[in-house]
């Protein structure tokens, strides 16, 4: 039995996840090897110590603090039925290649792709007029790492962080009657954004293509999708703000847990 096999066997037994064969195999091994017996006993002791650690009591008043922070207004809850613009577009175009093509053509005129900026170089970032591409519903093995929303000050917005192995995507849906700006600010340094796509009432201007802070004017039902490489950020953390000039109307934070950065 290799060290790895023994290690896994011992841990299965410690967790009570062993089969009868596992138990027999372990008894045989630790009966033949003092070092492995010692190793098993030490691991068992560690698990016992951990299991014996007493829970800590929350401080008095925490319950009241929690309850005081809960809004009495049920409308603060996210609406599960709220479907993102991307999802609507995706569902609309699935199985309708003509619509999908038409959509791509129309959106292609509205959409900026910063990937080209990354290719051409930052000095061209001031002129985004030629950087249009096509926007497709997001595909691939992305999973939702975080999501949040705000509904206040006449602005309803939601943001989601999507991840796959080497890339991240931040999608923001905003619905507002007035003109605001969506500001995407990564907490960690970003060297390149390789994709920016806009929908609805969102606009892109070349002057706003700043790696530290992406700004998009929005009005009405709008959507912003930005993407980048996870290696650029380490653990992906980002603040999405809705601003009116210098006034911050609302802020949303998106963060990947350390675990997913593995």
């Amino acid at each position, binding site marked *: 039995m290799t060290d790895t096999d023994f*290690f*896994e066997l011992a*841990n299965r037994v*410690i*967790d009570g*996840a062993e089969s009868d064969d596992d138990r027999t195999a372990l008894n045989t091994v630790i009966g033949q090897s003092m070092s492995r017996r010692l190793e098993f006993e*030490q*691991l068992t*002791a*560690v*698990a016992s*110590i*951990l*299991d014996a*650690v*007493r*829970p*800590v*009591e*929350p*401080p008095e008043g*925490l*319950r009241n*603090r*929690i*309850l005081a*922070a*809960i*809004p*009495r*207004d*049920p409308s*603060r*809850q*996210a*609406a*599960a*039925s709220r479907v993102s613009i991307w999802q609507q577009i995706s569902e609309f175009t699935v199985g309708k290649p003509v619509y999908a093509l038409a959509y791509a053509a129309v959106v292609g005129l509205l959409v900026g792709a910063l990937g080209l900026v990354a290719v051409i170089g930052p000095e061209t970032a001031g002129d985004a007029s030629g950087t249009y591409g096509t926007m497709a519903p997001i595909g691939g093995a992305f*999973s939702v*790492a*975080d*999501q*949040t*929303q705000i509904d206040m000050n006449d602005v309803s917005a939601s943001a989601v962080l999507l991840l796959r192995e080497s890339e991240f995507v931040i999608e923001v849906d905003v619905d507002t009657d007035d003109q605001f700006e969506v500001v995407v600010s990564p907490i960690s340094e970003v060297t390149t954004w390789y994709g920016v796509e806009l929908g609805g009432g969102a606009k892109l201007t070349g002057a706003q293509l700043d790696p530290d802070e992406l700004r998009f004017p929005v009005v009405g039902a709008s959507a912003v999708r930005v993407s980048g490489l996870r290696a650029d950020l380490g*653990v992906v*953390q980002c603040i999405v703000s809705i601003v009116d000039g210098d006034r911050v109307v609302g802020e949303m934070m998106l*963060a990947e*847990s*350390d*675990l*997913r950065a*593995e």
Partner: protein
Amino acid sequence: MSELSDQAIVRQVLAGDVSAFTHLVDRYQRVVYNAAFRITSNQQDAEDVTQTVFLKVYENLRLYNSKYRFYSWMYRIAINEALNQQAKRRKKTSADVETVAEPLAEDRTYEKIELEQQVQEAIYRLDPGDRALVVLKHFQGFSYDEIGFILDLPVRKVKSRLYTARQRLKEELIQAKVSG
């Protein structure tokens, strides 16, 4: 405390009975606080995390998918919050690790308290992700599958990381001469 199931309470809250949310707070504030404390090793951070978790749970209740256990879903939020809070603190040394000062109960000896402190310090020296794994497995009693759901990891990885984390803890505790 209400004897209603979590799912039933969630349905009440979603139907507009905000006060029913109190039952979820009463039921889970202690376990969420404990998980947060074990991960952040800081009482104030654990309080803040617990408060934020319940606010997020409330605000996202409509997004909860009842095919999962409510408990697991809430933990998913809790662990993420605790890890994010801990990440903000960065580079905190073991000297900053807090233990909870409590009156010495009959069954509590100074040796036991010292051991718990050493365990907490050893846990805190683990990688944050591994720390969460140990907390979920040993302090909260989750199964491999549930931990996989909470941490968005395949079960195979849950096991291998848990085993490695325990091995590291063993070494830390032996070094601290508390393994017996």
